[in-house]
């Protein structure tokens, strides 16, 4: 309900003609809005407040009685699940949470006067359990379980970071969001992390930042549910090569490697160890690097969080035609292509390739599958090919490894 009185300024003779239809003298009887409504959104099961987003988060819709076509007023619920409005008119209202991160509740009538408290006891769509947020190496890592309160799939989980205490899905400078899109049992463990060194344009060493863990239900219109915000001093960045991982191949020798180009060990240019592999493939060929292992590698990663990483040197981007389906990067557990395979399209834009060395990181969750499921405990094949070369092309590769990125 709009009460336009709040914008009245000092009187002036110039304005008097305009008041013909609305006596100025009546305004003397007007009461300022002085009633306060306050309260919290409380988890009916735990008795704890249900935190949310202060920006685009939960709102309470208020409709004041006594009007034929009332305009609703919306109260914003703060990050900690509390709300307060001190400028309401005394009277009867219908109030109902509008945008929500909890199961719908019915509208209720309330008479507001003086200091009126109204708490909403609700069931959040998702509860967090066993939350731990710590920094390990360069990663702020959260581990946790989820307890959805409906059978709806969990749409996504997220870790948000900011120097603002109101950090969340709408207030953050860095975020990591992972799609889940499945039902979740309380026994299922989750991990999600933010690599602060990778985001050094924002994170500064030895500074404190707020981190907040969120999860969103696929229930239509559901907002994020949150674990409590934590403040972490991110300390010093550590050397990236200390990132734990398992090598597919360190690219120190030609052992088992094939190429349709001139394959060589290059000790003068490398990103790891003592050498990298280089090849120059003629325009009419396609295979750059291929290796089948006699002893498979246990990658020690999951399909959900696993990453295939390697360093790739591109001499000339113009040597490659960049059309969909022209080129792939593949790993398999079948000892050859197309059997238990994960593959990614080798596209300059997707991989953000630049001339020179590129750090390639390929998420296994985003890979395509061919020929059945890959066995990540026994990966034994790698291939990189390109079918549309504009000219002879040179690539170098080094440091092919697997690790988990949360």
């Amino acid at each position: 309900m709009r009460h336009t009185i709040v914008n009245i300024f000092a009187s002036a003779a110039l304005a008097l003609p305009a008041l013909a239809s609305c006596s100025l003298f009546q305004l003397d009887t007007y009461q300022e809005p002085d009633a306060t409504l306050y309260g919290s959104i409380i988890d009916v099961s735990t008795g704890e407040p249900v935190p949310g987003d202060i920006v685009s988060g939960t709102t309470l819709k208020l409709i004041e009685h006594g009007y034929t076509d009332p305009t609703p007023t919306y109260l914003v619920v703060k990050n900690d699940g509390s709300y307060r409005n001190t400028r309401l008119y005394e009277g009867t209202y219908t109030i109902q949470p509008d945008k929500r991160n909890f199961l719908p509740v019915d509208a209720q009538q309330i008479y507001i006067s003086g200091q009126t408290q109204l708490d909403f006891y609700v069931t959040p769509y998702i509860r967090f359990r066993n939350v731990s947020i710590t920094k390990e190496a360069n990663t702020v890592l959260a581990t946790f379980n989820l307890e959805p309160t409906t059978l709806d799939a969990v749409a996504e989980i997220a870790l948000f970071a900011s120097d603002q205490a109101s950090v969340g899905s709408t207030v953050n400078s860095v975020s990591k969001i992972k799609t889940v899109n499945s039902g979740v049992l309380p026994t299922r463990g989750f991990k999600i992390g933010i690599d602060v060194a990778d985001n050094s344009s924002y994170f500064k060493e030895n500074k404190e930042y707020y981190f907040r863990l969120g999860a969103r239900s696929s229930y239509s219109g559901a907002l994020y549910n949150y674990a409590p915000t934590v403040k972490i001093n991110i300390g010093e960045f550590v050397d990236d090569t200390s990132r734990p991982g398992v090598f597919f191949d360190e690219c120190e020798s030609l052992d088992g490697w094939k190429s349709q180009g001139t394959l060589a060990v290059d000790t003068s240019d490398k990103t790891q160890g003592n050498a990298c592999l280089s090849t120059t493939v003629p325009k009419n060929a396609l295979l750059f690097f291929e290796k089948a292992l006699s002893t498979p590698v246990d990658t020690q990663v999951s399909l959900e969080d696993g990453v295939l990483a390697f360093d790739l040197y591109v001499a000339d981007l113009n040597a490659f035609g960049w059309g969909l389906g022209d080129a792939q990067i593949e790993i398999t557990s079948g000892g050859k292509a197309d059997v238990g395979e994960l593959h990614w399209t080798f596209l300059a834009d997707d991989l953000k390739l630049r001339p020179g060395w590129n750090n390639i990181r390929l998420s296994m969750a985003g890979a395509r599958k061919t020929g059945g499921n890959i066995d990540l405990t026994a990966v034994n094949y790698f291939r990189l090919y390109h079918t549309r070369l504009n000219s002879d092309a040179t690539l170098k590769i080094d440091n092919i490894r697997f690790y988990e990125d949360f």
Partner: protein
Amino acid sequence: MFLLSALILLSVQCDKIKMTPDPEPEQDVETSVIPLAENTIYTYALSNSLTPGCYDECVAASTLQGILNRQGPVMYLYGANTNKTSQWIEMFSKPGGWLEGRQQVKLESFGELLRLGKNVIKGVIIYDPDVPATINVATTMAGVEDGIVFSPEQAEKYAAEYGLAILHDFRSQFDGSLSGSAKNDAYRWAIDNYLDKGLCSTTQSFLYEDSRYNRPVGNLEYTYCRDFAVKERGFVFDLSPWEDEAPRDDASQPLGTDKATYIRILESYLRQTAGQHMTCLNGFFSKKKYSEIDGLGGAHGQVATEWESVWIASPYNVYMDTGPGEVYNMSFHSNAPFKPMKQGRPQLGQPQDGKTYLLFQLADYDGAGPLWEYMLNGIWNDDNRGSIPVIWGINPNLIDKLPDIMQYIWSTKTDADWFGADASCAGYINPNRIQEQYLPLFVEHNKKYYVMCDISISPMVLDQSQPSEAVKNAFMEFSPDGMATIVMNYHGGGTGLVNHVWNNTMPVFNLNNSVCGMGSQPENLAAGVSKVISKTSDPTPRYYMFRVIWVGPGKIINAVNQLRTLRPDLDIEVLDPYNFFHYFKTTYNQ
């Protein structure tokens, strides 16, 4: 000028200023009975705020509606999230429609609904949200005792104010002390006190999901459909057909408790019907409770659970109507006058060598839901309907619940639209599971519905093995122009079907279901059909029958055109079902 502008703004808006807050006026609530007027339809618009209160409103309104509509088409509900309720009543209120000339009176509030209901209800039955099965037991009781189903909150708010007696309060009645499951204790109490005493209908029964997962989120599934259950005084339940896995909603129950109660219900029907008539089980198993959900586990998939439900019901002469859960106002529609319908027959021709003959069955209208949803301003309005012959698979039993809609469909068919019974026959059942002594009853039941719908083809008989000789003999009596089957062998021991002609009379055919979900993308449908049809130099005519769900003929035309491009080696002709089976029989007999 700024000041002037501000004051002008004030003058324009001053009529909206509330000078002093008004206390809410105390008003006497009108609770007197609204007398029922003749030739009048009372309408009520349901709200849908996705809240438990909204769920409760819908349950109460629909249970009351069921009792009111025993007297005729008295009460009609408008759904909040669908335009179908308004479209259907507008359709039948047109000149010549069965509702022409009836006055519509809108009930403005839930209170007015109760005042109208006081004409017919004897009181209130309060269910216990903590034992969600009691909403089904309360619905059963409402039908038998002429009650309205209330939640505890509704009872507190309305019962005393409107002078409604409390017929029964289920709160705290069931704790699992008898069976190890409060849910099963509730249903077993209802079996003992209502079903086994012969107080419930043995013609219509109801497998409706309870409030466990729907009420907290204000999901209205299985709320507004309760009217027909109450009208028919049907027994309402929600149980798992599996005995090897505890249901998700009652994980601590002794293994197999749900199934044991389920069987008790089926046994009661067979005992009471004594082979005199069959029983329709309206509804579907709860996917949320009894089948696999991605990420939440579950030993059995959805299709397997559907098939298991039919498998266990069939020996008790119980067949399914899987789709009423999404339909409003069945108790209203069921009052429509019905006359036997005609679809006619095409002129029969002769097959030619070198041809590949195709038949497309447009499905899946075996339940009331898709029929109600898609047959007005939906698939049935496809501009290309009439341009390609198809067989629509529709459950003939729906004349019991939606006779007006069935007649609308039959009366608006084109010369290219043909109808067959789907699924299985007059009701979704596994014919091989019917006990031999009840096959004559099965024949009698189907003859009745096939004649009323002028159907003589059964394009999708579902079973777990190929039809037995006895079953084929039974089908010959009501489906002589052909039967097609899908055989899925979940229980082992069955064998697949070879297309043939039974007793030189009835074609028996395999219905190909491999492309059923591809209809919305004709290029996929064409590729899928192409995959099924092998290359050959044999000129003998070949026959393929495909089932495609929830698309109109336009998509089929598009797919067939793409198939012709994809397979220039084929001389394709799409046939109507009568010529298809007639051609096949001709070729087979040669």
